[in-house]
């Protein structure tokens, strides 16, 4: 078997990682494994390797450098440093990052601690996503009575969050809106699979 990177030497290092139930295998030769830091205990070997490969592919997909509208950090900067410029970069580069994060981590949704201040808002937005998905389904199946109940529940939740954000100190977190508050019904459809109910920390 040949090395997946140089495709010329015999592979002697075999890496297997299971991410969300999917097995990923990488076969490397001695030289490439060292180069990729697989034997290098300083880095998070496999993650870095996959990050490297994933990043390269993502960059190809978006050749014209996207820039973060908030801090001006570019995709090229990210490729160079492996670090992001600011919190908003996670949304600016969301498309490229999502595949990378999936490869790097055990899941793609945070299930751990939530700052107390944000816990209720986050729970509400997750409930909203579930309700909106239900609404789409109810409309599709022409269960209008159920749809009406769901719509009312959604209105109550939206009202609550509006009240909270207007009374809360500081500006609302911008990415909340983009990622987890589907504004229209088609968007809600996509939300069905994304946020699952998660445990409290």
């Amino acid at each position, binding site marked *: 078997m040949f090395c997946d990177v140089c495709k010329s030497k015999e592979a002697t290092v075999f890496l297997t990682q299971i991410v969300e139930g999917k097995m990923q295998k990488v076969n490397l030769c001695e030289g490439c494994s060292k180069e990729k830091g697989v034997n290098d*205990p*300083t880095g998070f*070997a496999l993650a870095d390797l996959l990050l490297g490969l994933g990043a390269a592919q993502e960059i190809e997909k978006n050749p014209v450098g996207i820039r973060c509208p908030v801090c001006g950090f570019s995709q090229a900067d990210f490729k160079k440093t492996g670090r992001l410029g600011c919190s908003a970069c996670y949304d600016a580069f969301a498309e490229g990052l999502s595949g990378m994060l999936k490869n*790097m*981590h055990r*899941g793609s949704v*945070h299930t*751990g601690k939530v700052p107390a201040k944000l816990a209720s808002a986050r729970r509400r937005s997750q409930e909203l996503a579930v309700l909106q998905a239900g609404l789409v389904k109810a409309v599709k199946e022409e269960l209008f009575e159920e749809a009406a109940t769901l719509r009312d529940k959604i209105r109550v939740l939206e009202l609550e969050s509006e009240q909270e954000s207007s009374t809360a100190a*500081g500006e609302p977190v911008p990415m909340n809106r983009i990622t987890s508050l589907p504004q229209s019904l088609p968007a809600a459809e996509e939300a069905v699979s994304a946020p699952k109910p998660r445990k409290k920390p």
Partner: protein
Amino acid sequence: MKLSGIIANTGEWLSGSGPHDQIVVSSRVRLARNLKGKPFPGWAKKAERIAVLEEVRGAVEQLPEMKESFSEKLEDLSPLEKQVLVERHLISREHAAKGAGSAVVMNTAQTLSFMINEEDHLRMQAIRAGLQLDEVFAMINQTDTELEDSLDFAFHNDLGYLTACPTNVGTGMRASAMLHLPGLVMSEQVNKIINSVNKIGLAVRGLHGEGTEAMGNLFQVSNQTTLGEAEEEIIGRLNKVIHQILEHEQNARQILLQQRAETLLDQIGRAYGILCHAHSITSKEALNLLSFIKMGVDLGLFPSQSRLQVDELFIETQPAHLQKGLQAVKLGSEERDSLRAALIRAKLKQMQEPEIGKIPITPPTSNTTTSEES
């Protein structure tokens, strides 16, 4: 509180005790946090970094657990002082390289330390002796909760805590334990263990997380992934693996005692001999030989009261610690090597001489000849 006052005492994680502390040297949990709406330190302008530093430092110093603490800007520490903190695992190498706009805050017990403007705005860690991952997590988690009141952390509904590097996003948590595994190294099983640990998404690294070679048979096991699992799940998984490694190490030592007792005694005896009489020794050689002495203490070949002295030597022989008492110019590596040898000789002289012939086991009769194979 002055740094010299803190450095004079060994940290709680070194002098203290904890479960399985013969094999698990220390347990550590680090959380990475960033302030909402502020560029990460690597991309921020100097003025922005300084503003973040002031805000975070103020909040950290206000914490009830940080009443007795040391707080200093990195630019106000000498290279030697920074290196001492690195050798004690209180700041990272990367942090030590930072200048204006970064700071370190730690408590006097050296169980809590805060790096401000390292790769993230705030990296806080708790460290203690032995296998106490749950306890150190509880400590740092409480600190984090307290800080939430005064600081607004960058948090994403799906991705959790946002960090400069996507490898830390989610919990922002790195939990690790430092393990002393001479038995697995001697019986050549350690690579097998490292490989299998790597495969399940945990990382094994050397003493300071750098260099493939683990000095002094010390290995650091930590989680690699931070997104998709709650903090407690990650720590639970790590705990389980560490317990297994512990068991393997104990078995390896038992087998060595039963089957290769002579080799084992020879290695420990030679290590003791060299350390007692060397006049020039590198830190790598010192660590590797001290590892045998440490195992000798575990096996009861050395008086148990010498344990702390041996453990302290692991730190005291590191380059910056060697020079910390000296105000003079920085020593060259040759001078350090002879200073190190002198320090070790002096320390070992204070210790009761071991009886390396008296091994506290009865080797099975069938195996008495196997010792000749080497």
